[in-house]
């Protein structure tokens, strides 16, 4: 289905993800007070960066769609919004796991956390709208909503700069972040941004096929929102007394990493199942693949 170029990039991406994870787990120096639990940071921040980029692309594609009514723009907008929601879901799951260790609580209603949750909800409502509007007007309505949703992005970005928050302040390029840690973070940022773009590319292909299928017969493809937050269940058994021990730091790190990969892999499986369904449907309708 894809060009050899896609597979080449895929290999590069897998290597990069492996290298980034190796750096995060082995090379990066342990943090003084938080130990291994701090290593969740190397997955949390890159996921946020990737999600922001994807939401940004979604905004541009939506404006492009409103201006030109181009089906390519629409497919790009859906792909980026959906993958962005998954990546932001990773942010919202990995953050609380770390926070449970660092602050002793999963969630506080400070400006950064609240605005982030709203941003995620906005894009979930975007996906809900896409699945429940009448076929003809879906794309136009969704593109309009995307413009509204994008207005929230600057608020999230500036939240921990404008207001005093419990969420850590921005650290890249400041003396607060150890040089080695920053290098590891940048590796992971590169890896996960590329990962986000690759999945979106894959999702975009599916969306284009879907558009072709829809042209052949008007039938709604059902797309559920990705299942999330399952790994959080693991944490309910933890005891506060154990909190500050090294083994516990390690445990938090493992839970964080497992949670993140559960979401990514879960979403990829969801996409593969969707693709298989679509292939069968396309074959039954006689749609030629290109």
């Amino acid at each position: 289905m894809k060009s050899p170029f896609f597979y080449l990039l895929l290999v590069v991406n897998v290597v990069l993800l492996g290298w980034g994870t190796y750096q995060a787990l082995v090379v990066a120096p342990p943090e003084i007070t938080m130990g291994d639990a701090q290593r969740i940071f190397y997955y949390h921040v890159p996921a946020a960066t990737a999600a922001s980029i994807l939401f940004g692309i979604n905004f541009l594609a939506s404006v492009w769609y409103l201006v030109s009514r181009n089906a390519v723009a629409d497919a790009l907008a859906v792909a980026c919004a959906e993958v962005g929601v998954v990546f932001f879901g990773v942010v919202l799951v990995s953050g609380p796991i770390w926070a449970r260790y660092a602050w002793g609580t999963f969630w506080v209603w400070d400006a950064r956390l609240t605005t982030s949750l709203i941003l995620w909800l906005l894009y979930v409502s975007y996906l809900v709208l896409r699945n429940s509007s009448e076929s003809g007007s879906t794309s136009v309505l969704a593109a309009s909503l995307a413009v509204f949703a994008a207005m929230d992005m600057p608020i999230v970005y500036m939240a921990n700069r404008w207001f005093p928050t419990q969420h850590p302040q921005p650290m890249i390029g400041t003396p607060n972040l150890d040089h080695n840690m920053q290098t590891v973070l940048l590796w992971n940022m590169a890896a996960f941004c590329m990962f986000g773009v690759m999945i979106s590319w894959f999702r975009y292909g599916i969306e284009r096929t879907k558009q072709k299928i829809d042209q052949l017969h008007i039938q709604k493809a059902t797309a559920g929102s990705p299942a999330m937050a399952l790994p959080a269940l693991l944490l309910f058994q933890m005891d506060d007394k154990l909190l500050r021990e090294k083994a516990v730091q390690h445990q938090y790190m493992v839970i964080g990493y497992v949670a993140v990969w559960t979401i990514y892999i879960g979403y990829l499986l969801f996409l593969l199942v969707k693709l298989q369904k679509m292939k069968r449907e396309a074959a039954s309708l006689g749609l030629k693949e290109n």
Partner: protein
Amino acid sequence: MNLSVTKLAALNVRKDLRLEWRSRDVLNSMLFFALLVVVIFSFAFAPTREESRRLSGGLIWTAFLFSTTMALNQSWARELRNGVLDAYRVAPAPAESLFLGKCLGNFLLVLILECLMAPLFVLFYNLTAVGAYWQLIVICLLGTWALVVNGTFFAAMSIRTRNRELMLPLLLLPVSIPAVTAMVTATSNVFTGDSSALVQIKFLAVFCVVYTTISVLLFDTVLNAE
């Protein structure tokens, strides 16, 4: 016929208000709903005087937010009967005038609701403002406009979807949470007098300007989405 946008908007407002005056179904249901919320909250929390100062910002705006949602659904659902919305679509009048008319109509309705409910809140919760109470008027005007302008836009959007009324809260609440947070904090600040509400008022003003602009720009697209 050459009518300016403002004149057309004024005509729309007059038409909406006259319809509402004759039937009074929206205002009555809004009022009754808000009253129920006030009563339920007051015995669910049973706050003391100090607590109610802290809580009432949230209570007031939750009550207004939910009752506004009722009004908004009605304002467009009314136009679906007899294909009025389709008539608007083919009419040569600019879509912005229809949107602004609807917004102003809803704004006035919600303001009436707020004027009627405010004394009740004061009565039930023993409210006295420690801070600068005149700020409440500004917060009220800006907050109501923020809710109504987004609400009118998303109500127009949600009647285009399959599950109509169900869709509105799903679309409207996430978009307006930043504004609602600002309104609640500002109102509580005025009641308790702990800190200034000016930051939130500025935020609300910016919010209103930004979202009014986008709504006006995109309304034509949404009205004619096919």
